[in-house]
């Protein structure tokens, strides 16, 4: 995937070029010296195979256009199947399709929040920071926002995350691998597994998840994506790992245009979210919080019951 070479920094440079900024303006905007910026720009030209600023802008505009075209084209090609959720997930992304239901999936979700309250644990600053970070990673994973993962990794958050929250670092590693940043992904994954040998870090299942994700995205192995899906179906203690595997399998199948199986994965995610919501409701929670707006409708009395009462 050629787009993968364009990281967040290059993307920004291209955007600035496209609105006609000079290299001095770009440097100022991005916080570099002008000379440094020139070097960066030339590296970028070489990378995308153009000779100068103008060609770069043309390349960029073409690419932007083709992306939208591609999307329209694809959705035209793709037959509607009646699987509403699966169709929309393929067309948009999982995050948009799940909508607010994504709150019931992933780490530090709604269920975690309620459990925290049940246990009477007060939320401290550190915890809420950790939570916010993990939720953003999860969101990026659902969205397929690979650039976000790279940005986090480049800001040397990779090291910090793997230090104090190995489970979140696993998500980051998966995000990197899925986005094609194989070098960074592998480095982070091996960091995490090394720590495991020292007795603290990721669990066996998390290590398996990272391995399967690498196989599925890097080796472009047809079996690997299926293995990921199977792994998601296994009985596991942590629902989050299961869900992460499911999302990764969805992306892998989508990339390979195996739509039917991608749909399966998307629907499994929906089922996960729905069962968490039902569980919360069964425990007497209002799953999405807020006030109960209107009273529940009175229970309908079935005919049999009414008859029995009459007798």
């Amino acid at each position, binding site marked *: 995937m050629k787009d993968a070479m364009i990281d967040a920094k290059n993307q920004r440079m291209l955007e600035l070029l496209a609105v006609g900024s000079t290299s001095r303006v770009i440097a100022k905007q991005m916080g570099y010296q002008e000379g440094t910026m020139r070097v960066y720009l030339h590296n970028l030209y070489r990378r995308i195979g153009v000779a100068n600023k103008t060609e770069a802008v043309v390349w960029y505009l073409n690419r932007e256009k083709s992306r939208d075209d591609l999307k329209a084209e694809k959705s035209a090609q793709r037959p509607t199947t009646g699987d509403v959720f699966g169709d929309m997930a393929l067309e948009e992304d999982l995050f948009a399709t799940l909508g607010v239901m994504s709150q019931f999936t992933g*780490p*530090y979700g709604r*269920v*975690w929040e*309620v*459990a925290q*309250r*049940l*246990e*009477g*644990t007060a939320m401290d600053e550190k*915890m809420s920071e*950790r*939570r916010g970070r*993990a939720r953003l990673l999860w969101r990026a994973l659902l969205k397929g926002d690979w650039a976000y993962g790279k940005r986090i990794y480049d800001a040397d958050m990779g090291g910090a995350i793997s230090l104090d*929250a*190995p*489970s*979140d670092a696993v998500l980051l590693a998966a995000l990197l691998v899925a986005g094609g940043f194989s070098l960074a992904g592998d480095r982070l994954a091996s960091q995490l597994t090394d720590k*495991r*040998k*020292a*007795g*603290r870090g990721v*669990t*066996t299942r998390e290590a398996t998840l990272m391995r399967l994700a690498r196989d599925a995205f890097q080796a472009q192995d047809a079996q690997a994506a299926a293995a990921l899906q199977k792994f998601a179906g296994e*009985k596991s*203690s*942590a*629902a*989050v790992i299961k869900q992460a595997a499911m999302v990764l399998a969805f992306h892998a199948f989508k990339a390979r245009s195996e739509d039917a199986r991608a749909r399966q994965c998307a629907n499994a995610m929906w089922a996960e979210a729905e069962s*968490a919501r039902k*569980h*919360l409701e*069964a*425990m*007497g*929670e*209002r799953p999405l919080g807020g006030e109960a707006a209107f009273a529940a409708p009175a229970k309908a009395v079935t005919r049999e019951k009414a008859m029995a009462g009459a007798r």
Partner: protein
Amino acid sequence: MSQEDLPGEGPVQALISQLRAPLPAEGANQVVDSALALCRQLYGSARSRDALPLAQAALARSREASDPNRILRAAAACGMLSADMADIVAAVGYHVQALRVGMREENRGEMSRSWNNIGNALGITGNYSMAARCFQRSLALVAPMSGPVYSRFAASGNLADCFFQLGNTSEGIAQAERALHEMTPAFREHDPYAAVLLHRNLVRLNVAAGRLDLAERHVAEVVAIGAASASPRVRIAVDITRASFELASGRSDVALTRLDQVLARAREVPSTLRDTLACVIRAEESAGNTARALMRLEELSDHIYNLAIERAREHVELAGVREEAGLAMGQRNEIDRARLVSKLEPRSAPESFKALQRLAVGAVMRMDETGWHGRRVGALSKALALALGTPPLQAVEIGMAAELHDIGMLSIPEGILASKRSLNAAETAIVQRHADAGAEMLRDDDHPMVFMAQEIARYHHAHWDGQGYPARVAGRFIPLGARICAVADAYDAMVCGIGSEPARTMAEALEELQRGAGTQFDPEHVSCFDALVRSESEDLGMDLQAGSGMEDFQELVLTLKEDRGFV
């Protein structure tokens, strides 16, 4: 001061509301002082339940005024009263507060006094070795001071008692002599009860060492102090001391008559009844009246049982209703309505849950030095429930409820639990009552979480094949939470060596669980637990066969408790 001179409920309430009302500084100090004095009197006549809210109000007041001296005294009072009401964890908490203030003020005497109080609280749970360490620390703090120091006197007296309980007579006598040396008439005046206890300890220690002549001298001292004091606690302690000396010198009939009289008086002051009954049992035993001894033993166990349940309820009540007691009808209705509303509200832990958790920690401290047995079982139960595929929030609730599974141990005489030998039939019967006692303590509240805790407390010793106690239930008729907790409880007890059996390695304990699968435990749960422990310990790179699995096991539990954002 006799029982009649003390104020009833009314004046105490008045004083509490006075403490809460805004007052000018010097007036407030006076009120705090008189509140603390009143607490001391109420404590002396065994009315700690009334005194505790008063002491708490005094503590809050002196905190507001940030007056270190009064904070110290109020916190110490709160701690003593909590300890008297069997809430050991809260007691230690208050004493630690006092200790902190003492540290800030760099007042070694006060720090030493706090350590002494902490030791006293731990001693109540029968955890004498830990209590002894606290007393030693207390002594070390005042070691550089010369002259008679009150806390040196108190701590060495208490240390002597610990040594007596641990069976180290010679050390005990040495410590007690040191305390005696430290005692001045002023101390004796200030705290006659402590003086009596010191002499009582000397009597007991000397009797144990076979020095009856020395013991007799101390009996005379005890009688002299007792004559000067009017507190019912002191007088009962005096009579018990005399009786135990008479018993040792072979005059059991005299001892028995005396004890009969004491018993009648002790029934008026519940907190002394236990010591009295214990002494009566020894007397009857040595006089050869086994039947009567057994009868008294039954009374003792009933008494402790009921007292423990009553106290647990009181704590729940104190935690739930913080406002003035004696609610008007309107307020009652208000609370009932709030309860009803709370049924419709999202569920959360009831207010009394924290109090229950503290009580449960205090309860297991009798068997497990650290008091963490309950927490460990809670964490293991939660993990097992999740691994079994229980919905996450339900698993959380099971884990929290399982923390309270041994709360009924509060009702077991600590002597039985502290002993590491195997128990005889009568003692086993008493220990087995903890299941019912726990359920009884948790009975009142109809909050779903407390209800689950109650089920677990009642049935966590029920066996899969119906051979457990207290009730003969089998198979899936045993509530799920109780079945889960049974596996976790047994595993923790085996690995940590709770009870009479020695600690096993983690692998041995797993094998032992496997042996009980299908008879004692739900076979499905055992195999699931086995897989859980094996995979988790593999992740942590542990060796299940390792000789002492304790540390690894602790780490395993910590990993399970760790919050990784999952449920």
